[in-house]
């Protein structure tokens, strides 16, 4: 059974290879092949899952050792897999949601002549992501880590002919690279500290070494997580990443890849538990990001960017939870899973809306769409309720647990975190309601908005293929797209309950992550009530603002905060001024230095020799007598020198 683990990765990898190398021949059925292999790997995952359930909960981890990868002296890296409950959770999420999104894409990418390649990239992503979660050592994880980075690079930049897309892709990769530096340094630290970087031994040995080293490792891991999971300060790429096709945003930039950071931290729990300072850093990052993202979410008029902001903020929740240590890990993962469902659902919904609206993304040009695309409306609606944590839906359970855990951290820290999370919940309710209202309620602002507003991001090329810029005719999307949405909607509704009843999820993960309840200053019910309360506040605020009065098609100038938020809270400006400009100056001056200084020295020496030569040859003035002089002088010197030698 364990030998199946490898196939989890192999199947999609095979698909990617075939689709990308296959060439035009595969254009017609390429997407089916891709979907099939994604499904295959889901099935394998499911089989392994059932097998795992059979085992007693402490011996569920499975291992598969393929071959020795880099055997160099003391440095032994293997290609080996470890599939425990934590990995399994991810495997199911990835392959499940992945497969759905493959199906969705069949319809969504129908009109794109490069659809085969798109599916190739999707498979590549699945392979890398699965490798990331089933690797049994950090180096192999690193391979998956960068692999998903590559896949996301390729997919964000899928419409390469759009400069904006190409730039966004590059930005995403670069920012991720910064995170990767953290990961690789962390691995080096592990190697120098423990002489290995395999999960088992490393996590076992954490007790033996100094807290300082562990803190260093922890911080480096956190840096990596920030890059991949778009946490402050490395969050800037996620918004731009929305340039990619919507299914990509749903799969990579909502459900799976961006949560890799959470996985990393949870996986390395042992290290963080032993390094409180690192944990504090983690929770801080989480807390900041969850507010930061939420604020951005409130300001964006681009539906996908608004959702991106929300993603950031939700992952902030998870990171925060993971930072809480054993009290939080489980809920981090649980929220991760539920979020996977409803956020993917929301994105697919958004995609469906755009699909029906000539790829218009500006919510101010939507409105009243509920009667035109009912299925989308319902599924999206359910996702909406889930994310704002409407009691009974999955988001409610997971987020509520995190808030409890935050308080349970105890002390002032606990209070701060708890209140932050509550505030976050309120804002979430606010901006999601805003999205909902702008899109599906209110008057139909798209009616006379024939030409798209200039400031809206240029649309996906599928539009050109359909080639109409006239007034949109909103319509429901094809089955291939709606079915996945429906399935996800089910997930959004029931997953939470399913997990929480009888703490199933806690028991499932406990053997891996460990769990304790902490001592919350507030009773569970108080927390729940306050959650509901803030929820209501948020919703009603939003309704007051967007539900009652008509929404202007062109965005009002808005408050200072709003304007800042529209520009990702000035993060981009910072990047531009400091990094881009500064970098350009640096490189330009270096080029100059290299040419004038380093090279100059060389050419200079040559020149000076030439000059010297030019001066010396003047002595050769053609007059025999002057030659005689030099000879005479030479002799004199010769004699003098000889005598001198004797004298001294």
């Amino acid at each position, binding site marked *: 059974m364990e030998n199946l683990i490898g196939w989890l990765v192999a199947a999609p990898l095979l698909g990617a290879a075939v689709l990308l190398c296959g060439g035009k021949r595969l254009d017609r059925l390429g997407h089916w092949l891709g979907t099939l292999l994604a499904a295959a790997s889901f099935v394998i995952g499911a089989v392994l899952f059932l097998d795992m359930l059979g085992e007693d909960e402490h011996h569920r981890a499975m291992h598969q050792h393929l071959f020795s990868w880099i055997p160099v002296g003391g440095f032994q890296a293997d290609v080996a897999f470890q599939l425990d409950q934590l990995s399994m959770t991810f495997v199911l999420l990835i392959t499940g949601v992945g497969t759905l999104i493959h199906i969705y894409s069949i319809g969504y990418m129908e009109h794109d002549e490069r659809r085969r390649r798109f599916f190739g990239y999707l498979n590549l992503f699945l392979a890398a992501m699965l490798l990331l979660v089933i690797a049994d050592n950090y180096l192999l994880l690193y391979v998956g880590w960068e692999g998903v980075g590559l896949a996301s690079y390729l997919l964000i930049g899928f419409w390469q002919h759009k400069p904006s897309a190409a730039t966004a892709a590059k930005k995403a990769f670069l920012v991720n690279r910064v995170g990767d530096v953290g990961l690789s340094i962390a691995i080096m630290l592990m*190697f120098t500290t423990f002489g290995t970087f395999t999960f088992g031994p490393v996590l076992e040995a954490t007790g033996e070494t100094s807290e300082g080293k562990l803190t260093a490792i922890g911080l480096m891991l956190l840096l990596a997580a920030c890059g991949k999971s778009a946490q402050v300060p490395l969050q800037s790429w996620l918004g731009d990443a929305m340039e990619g096709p919507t299914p990509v945003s749903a799969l990579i930039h909502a459900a799976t890849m961006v949560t890799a950071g959470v996985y990393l931290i949870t996986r390395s729990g042992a290290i963080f538990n032993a390094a409180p300072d690192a944990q504090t850093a983690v929770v801080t990052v989480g807390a900041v990001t969850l507010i930061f993202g939420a604020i951005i979410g409130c300001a964006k008029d681009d539906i996908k960017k608004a959702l991106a902001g929300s993603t950031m903020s939700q992952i902030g929740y998870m990171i925060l939870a993971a930072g809480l240590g054993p009290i939080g890990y489980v809920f981090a993962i649980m929220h991760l899973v539920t979020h996977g469902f409803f956020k993917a659902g929301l994105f697919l919904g958004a995609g469906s809306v755009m699909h029906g609206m000539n790829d218009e993304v500006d919510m101010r040009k939507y409105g009243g769409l509920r009667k035109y695309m009912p299925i989308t409306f319902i599924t999206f609606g359910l996702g909406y309720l889930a994310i704002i944590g409407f009691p009974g839906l999955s988001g409610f359970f997971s987020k509520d647990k995190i808030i409890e855990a935050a308080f349970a951290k105890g002390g002032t820290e606990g209070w701060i975190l708890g209140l932050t999370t509550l505030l976050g919940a309120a804002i979430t309710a606010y901006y999601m309601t805003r999205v909902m209202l702008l899109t599906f309620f209110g008057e139909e602002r798209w009616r006379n908005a024939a030409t798209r507003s200039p400031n809206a991001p240029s649309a996906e090329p599928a539009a050109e293929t359909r080639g109409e810029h006239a007034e949109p005719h909103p319509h429901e999307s094809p089955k291939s797209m709606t079915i996945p949405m429906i399935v996800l909607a089910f997930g959004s509704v029931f997953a939470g309950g399913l997990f929480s009843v009888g703490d199933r999820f806690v028991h499932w993960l406990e053997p891996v992550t460990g769990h304790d309840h902490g001592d919350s200053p507030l009773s569970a019910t108080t927390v729940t009530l306050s959650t509901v309360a803030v929820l209501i506040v948020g919703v009603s605020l939003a309704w007051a603002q967007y539900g009652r009065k008509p929404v202007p098609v062109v965005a009002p100038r808005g408050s200072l905060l709003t304007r800042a938020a529209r520009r990702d809270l000035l993060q981009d400006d910072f990047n531009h001024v400091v990094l881009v400009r500064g970098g350009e100056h640096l490189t330009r001056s270096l080029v100059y230095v290299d040419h004038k200084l380093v090279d100059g020295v060389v050419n200079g020496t040559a020149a000076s020799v030439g000059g010297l030569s030019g001066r010396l040859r003047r002595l050769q003035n053609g007059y025999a007598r002057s030659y005689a002089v030099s000879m005479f002088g030479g002799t004199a010197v010769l004699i003098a020198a000889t005598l001198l030698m004797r004298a001294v």
Partner: protein
Amino acid sequence: MSFPLLTAMAVVPAVGALVTAAIPAAQRTTAKWVALLFSLVTLVLAAVTLVRFDPDSEDAYQLTESHAWIADFGVRYELGVDGIAVVLVALTALLIPFVILAGWNDADPPASSVHDKHDKHVKHEAADEVVTQGRWRPTQGFFALILMVEAMVILSFEATDVFLFYVFFEAMLIPMYFLIGGFGDRAGQLSEEETATQRSYAAVKFLLYNLAGGLIMLAAVVGLYAVTADDLGTGTFSLQQIAEARASGQLDISTNTERLLFLGFFFAFAVKAPLWPLHTWLPNAMGESTTPVAVLITAVVDKVGTFAMLRFCLQLFPEASKWATPVILVLAVISIIYGALLAVGQRDIKRLVAYASISHFGFIILGIFAMTSQGQNGATLYMVNHGISTAALMLVAGFLISRRGSRLIADYGGVQKVAPVLAGTFLIGGLATLSLPGLAPFISEFLVLVGTFSRYPAIGIIATVGIVLAALYVLVLYQRTMTGPVKAGIEGMPDLKARELTVVVPLIALLVFLGVYPKPVTDMIDPAVGRTLSVVDKQDPKPDVPAQDVEAAK
């Protein structure tokens, strides 16, 4: 005495050069095929060597050959390979056929016909023989020179006699010089003779730089002779003899002398490698020469420099090497960052790759002087991987340039739209260059970093920053050339042809294979590296909490 495999490996291409050069002007195509054939034969021989080579054997050098040569100079014709050399020889033999294939049409007239007499001279043929073949044969010359370079490079990898090594290390410059100066990719932005001037400037710069390095090394070589002559009675250049003599304490070099000699050797290798601040010849040389030649320079010839550091600097002067390590490491790190930053700032594709190479050589040298098994394994592996990846990237770039007739990045855009395969291969080459996990360079780079970090954490961390910059220059290059709207002059650009694919695909396949399963190579290198380290007697730093012990404790 068994079949002299190592000599054969050098003789075959040398003969090939003569034959190729002798082919009459008319049969240009024949010349190409002959050259390719000889390079392939060499490749086969290299394969045989790999098989015959036994990684686990006890003796330092295998397949050795030894004949008297210049007794008065204490010089013997001594060949032998250790795990490092054998791998690099294989790399050379492997790359040359691709270089030849890639340069298939680069030297067809009109091109300056320098080499004609030139390889004449390189071949050391009696002058009157030339009379029989008066006319220009640029193509023949081009391929003859390439083969000649191959022969000399292989010999310098195999030589276990310092003098013998030096001879080919220097002689190699001449054919290279004519390859650089004699053939340009007709992609200059300037007029014909402006490019010609640029080219000859580049060629002269290349030659003088390396000659200067070589001459300084010559002084050190002479010094080495004097030293050995003093202590051993008769001067010798044989690596093994010297090593044994040092081991037995029979030969002991005073600290200062050793340091001076070391510097003499190192300078030459640092120029060749090239190490900041001695690098400025490389961008000119790579920028002006045709892409195959550029590949020859950076992927093959320059490796001799780094290889020689590993074999000669460390093994002849272990103490001095340790003494110089801090400075060298700093220079290496500067190379890494500096090269990468300049690569970002380049407007010319080939110069960009050149600066990227400078950055990579920084990594290699870093690995060598980190004096850890990971570092040196990584460095050696890096030489191989960098050879392959740069070849892939540069050759594809060459195909691109030859299509558009320009080296300026600004002249490109949206290529992926018209030539997706070209763009794809280019991207893979680029990803290899930024050492993406799963492709070969990642492994070597990571090993180098780990190796450095485990002994010099600070330097290791700075060097790690280099990987971000690498991503920057590669992706910027890709974005500007391949993506975005199709630029004027790009429309209707043909995609890769069969010949070009046969060049690129195997290289990429190799990159992937070595990225996933480098074990065969590392198994070759590891023992040799271990031996080198024992010569400099350095052990890897121990982890402070070896996890195994912890396991055991539990």
